Each structure stands twice: as C-alpha cells, then as structure tokens.
C-alpha cells in the first residue's frame, strides 16, 4: 500500500514537472530548429536580454504587477476591514460578490471590463490595464485578510477603543499590525496573479502598452522557439522565488 502511494504521488509530480524540466533543458540547447540535443549554450538567454522590445514588455509587466499588487493590497485590506468591523447596508452583498469575483472565469472579467472601458471611452493602455489587474486582485487580498481578521478575538478591537483609540487608530495600531502577514501574502499573490494573467490583459490593454504574457502568447502561437524556452524558464524562476518568499511570510505568522 505504502509503495503504491509513493509511486502514485511520484507519477503526479512527474506529470507536473516533466514538461517544465524539458522546456528549461531545451532553453540551453544550442540547436535552433530541431528538438535534437546539440550541446549546451547560453545564446538564447543572451539573445533574450538583448531583445529590447521584449525587455520593454517585461518592464511593463513588472511595473503593472508592482503597482497593482500595491494598490490591491491597500484596497483589499480596507475592504476586508470595512466588512469585518462595520455593519452597513449592502455589506452582505459585497461579501458575496467578492467571493463570486474570485471564482469568475477570467474571460468574463476581461470582457466585462472591456465593455466598461469602451462605455467610458477610455483608451486601452496602461491605466485600463492597471485598473483591470487591481479588479482581479482585490478579492483575493480582501478574502485572505478577512480570513485572518475572522480568526481574531473581536474583543481586541473593543479593547483598543476602550483604551481611547478612535477608528483610525484602531486600524493603524491594532488591525493593520495584526493582519500584516496576510497583507504581505496578499501582495505576493496579487503580484503573481498580475504577472501570470493572459486573458484579462488580452482584453484590457492596447498596442501602446504591451505586457510580457501577451508577448509570449503571440510568440508561442508561432510554434516552438528556443528564445521562448529561455523566456519561460526565467518566468518559472521568478514564480518559484515569489512563491518561496510568500510562504516564508505566511509561516512567520505562526
């Protein structure tokens, strides 16, 4: 039984990682056109970093990811706090909507925002993309932070007020420090969501502001290319680092 379990788990991991490993390996293959192994090279990476329009797209992605992670962490935390601390009309509706938004397929979010931006006649580009990514990320941050707030003794907030803290002080000195690990985890979550997103970006950015996943999309559609392998390897590395960091922060809370 035990070996059977180990073998099964091993096969699942093999399935998850083999394609990634093969792709990373081929990013070092010196053959341009065939899958046959012709020796190790770093050419593709050199080429990658020399490709200025690609680097431009990567920079755009980074800027959008950092900005949208930061905005949605702030917004999401405030939303979570509002839902947790105060009773106001539509509170329940908003809580449910956040959950629904988190579950919504990207394509539904993407086209609904596209329709919104068109209705407001906003030109598609940096600003629309930023707003779209913030919309994508806020529910994740809000639900993460809300979950953490929910685990706290509600009397802690009452105690702070009892000791003379107003609403702002309660937020600044009690709620925020207590949920900070969750906010940080939410930041990394949002960062990764933003860097990885294809579908929503596809609908909400314009030719003036190209981001990396869309660039990869157009390259990938043209078939296998060693530069793409190298680019994907770099993206995997970034994800691994971000995930490790966010795990570290989440663990620190315990």
């Amino acid at each position, binding site marked *: 039984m035990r070996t059977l379990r180990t073998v099964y788990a091993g096969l699942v991991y093999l399935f998850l990682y083999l394609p990634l490993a093969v792709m990373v390996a081929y990013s070092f293959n010196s053959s341009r056109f065939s899958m046959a192994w012709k020796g190790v090279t770093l050419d593709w990476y050199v080429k990658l970093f020399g490709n200025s329009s690609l680097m431009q797209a990567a920079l755009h992605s980074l800027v959008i990811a950092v900005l949208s992670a930061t905005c949605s962490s702030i917004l999401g935390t405030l939303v979570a706090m509002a839902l947790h601390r105060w009773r106001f009309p539509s509170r329940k509706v908003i809580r449910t909507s956040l959950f629904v938004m988190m579950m919504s397929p990207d394509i539904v979010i993407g086209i609904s925002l596209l329709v919104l931006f068109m209705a407001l006649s906003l030109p598609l580009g940096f600003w629309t993309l930023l707003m779209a990514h913030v919309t994508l990320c806020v529910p994740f941050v809000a639900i993460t932070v809300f979950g953490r707030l929910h685990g706290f003794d509600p009397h802690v907030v*009452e105690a702070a007020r009892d000791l*003379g*803290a107003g609403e702002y002080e309660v937020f600044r000195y009690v709620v925020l420090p207590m949920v900070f690990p969750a906010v940080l985890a939410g930041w990394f979550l949002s960062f990764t969501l933003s860097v990885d997103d294809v579908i929503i970006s596809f609908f909400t950015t314009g030719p003036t502001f190209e981001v990396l996943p869309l660039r990869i999309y157009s390259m990938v559609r043209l078939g296998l290319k060693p530069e793409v392998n190298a680019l994907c390897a770099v993206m995997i590395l970034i994800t691994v680092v971000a995930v490790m960091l966010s795990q570290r922060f989440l663990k620190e809370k315990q």
Partner: protein
Amino acid sequence: MADIATQSTPEPVVRLRNVTKIYDGQHALRDVSLDVHRGEFLTILGPSGCGKTTILRLMAGFEGATSGSVAIDGRDVTGLPPERRNVNTVFQSYALFPHMNVFDNVAFGLRMKRRPAAEIAREVGDTLRLVQLEGFEGRMVGKLSGGQQQRVAIARAIINRPLVLLLDEPLSALDYRLRKQMQLDLKHLQRKLGITFVLVTHDQEEAFSMSDRVVVMNNGHIEQIGTPVSVYEEPCNLYVARFVGEINIIDAEVVEPGEGRARVRAQGLDVFMRAGHAFKAGDKAHILLRPEDLRVETLKDLAEDPELEDAFSRGRSIFGSVEETIYKGATYDVVVRLDAGGVVTATEFFNEDDETVYFRAGDRVAVSWVEGWEVVLPYEK
C-alpha cells in the same frame, strides 16, 4: 423592583435609568435602573443570557441602549463612543493585543492620550509592579500563562485611572486554585486603588467573596440588589433564593397576617413566622429554609434525651423519614421526606469523635430550626 434599585445616595458614579436593549427583536434588558456608588465593588450575578454582560457593554459604550439613559460621573454619556468614556474594561478573553509585548499592551491607553514617553515608561513600570509582573515588559503576551495574561489585562485597564473598572467574567478561564487567589488579589487591588469595580459573573461564591453589593439578574431585569449577606439571608423571591445557594421550599398557607409577621400553617405547624410581605388571610405562601439552618434528630434520640427534646421543641419542628444521605466531605446532607408531603435537605456536620454518617435511610426524624431564620414569601407558580 425599581425603588430598590435606585436608593438615593450622593451622586452615583454610574447611573442607568430605565435602560432597555433589544437585539434582533429579543429583549436583552427590560427597563433596568441601577446606581453604582463611588468606590464600591459591585457584582452583577446571573446565569448566562440574563443580560449582565449587556449592562457592562452599555457602561463601556460598546453598545447603545434601545431606550433609557446612561450617565457616568453625573454626565449623560448615552451615544458617546467607548474611547471617550472614562471607564475601562477587562475582557473575559483578556483581548490582549497579540502583536505587542507586555509593555506595549499596558502602555496603549497612555499612548492614545499622547503622554510623553518618559511618563509612560514610569507609569507602566509602576502598574506592572502593582500586579506583580515586574520584569515581564519585553515578553510577548502569547507566551504568558493564563494568570499572567489576566494580570496584564488588569494592568492595561487600571493604568488609565478609570473612574470605573468593568470586569467581564475575568476569572472564568482560570483553574480553581488560581481563581481563588485572583479573587483575593482583585479585592485587595480595588481597596488599594479606590477605583469602583463592576464585575460580572455567574459564580455566586465569587460574587459573595469579593463584593460590597450584589445585583442578581434574571431574564433581562434586576431581581434584587443588596449586600451578599442580605441577598443570601433575605432573598426577595424564589428565583434569587434558588440562584444563590441551596434552598428548601415548603408550601404554606397564611392564617392570620400581622405586623412584620404572620401566622402560617404548614406541615402540621401553626405558628407565627417573620414575614416582610403584606399577606392576607388565606394567601398561599412559601417557607424558605437554608439546609445549613436545619437541625435533624431521630425521634428515638429525642425520646431518650429530654434536654434535647426541650431544646428542639422550642424551635419549630416538622416530621418525616430519612430518604438518603449524601456525603460531601466536610459535611453531609440528609434528605428527609416529610410526612405531610415534600422533601427537605439538611446539612449536618460530622461529630468531632465520629466520622460516620449518623442517619440511616428510613430513620424517623424531626427537623427543626431557630425561630426567625425562615423566610416567608408570597406563593409563586
């Protein structure tokens, strides 16, 4: 009840007037009026859900009253948020800030008042000394024992020199021995500081051992207010009598009402008893007796000992048979089935030279008590 609740004394520190609180259509409090006197240790006693914590939260400002008013130190504070009331709370769960150490927890209130750092450091040191937690300043609160957390919670509240300290079942999370110790410590602390304490508990023993006055609550209203002795010895109704300690209740009938007393017929007795209520002839009534106030002797012993019989017949005695005896350690209970119906329990001490239970099931006995130790109340269904 309202007239008992609002004895006029010079300016109470907290005054509730006709306070009603409704949650989701349920009355948590109905028309409650209560004065808390300056410097007293007042305990609000009642079962869970009786509204006692609601009173505390109304005083602290966490809840607003549906109707009625709350005044602190002569000023109407109805609608004033908690941070602007000069009262502080010790929570049942302590509610210490988990991300702060002991020092920062205790300093929180003074920091909110923007006191200078040097003053804060001095005050926190003094307060921690008062609760015997010197040297714990740098500890995170999660690493403290329950008793230590409890003391941090008290220190965090009293450092603000509140007019009133509100304590919401502060000892319920502690084990029995620690609870006993903390009861004494709290009482001493209150004397030393001279701050008014309002404590909420469901534990009758705790209420009696600490308080100057006890408020007995039931179902959203106040049943009785008085010193522990008066509440125990003179319960004003069956609910209070039953809630504070064990009680025997014997049904009776008033034959002839009188001034401060009444001739009552019950269990073959037909005698005058002390009665605070105005009865009419023919009213049904209850005779209330605490088990420790009852004496039990076998008819055989009484027959053999004229001196004992004499002493016994000077009191009031009723007859029955022993049903069972219950060993309690220092004492034992004798359960007697009365000849005229009903059961009473009497608490007996062991004889110094005899560690065995004297009575046997089936023994014919007389139960007696000293005249005036009984309480006669109007009949309740």
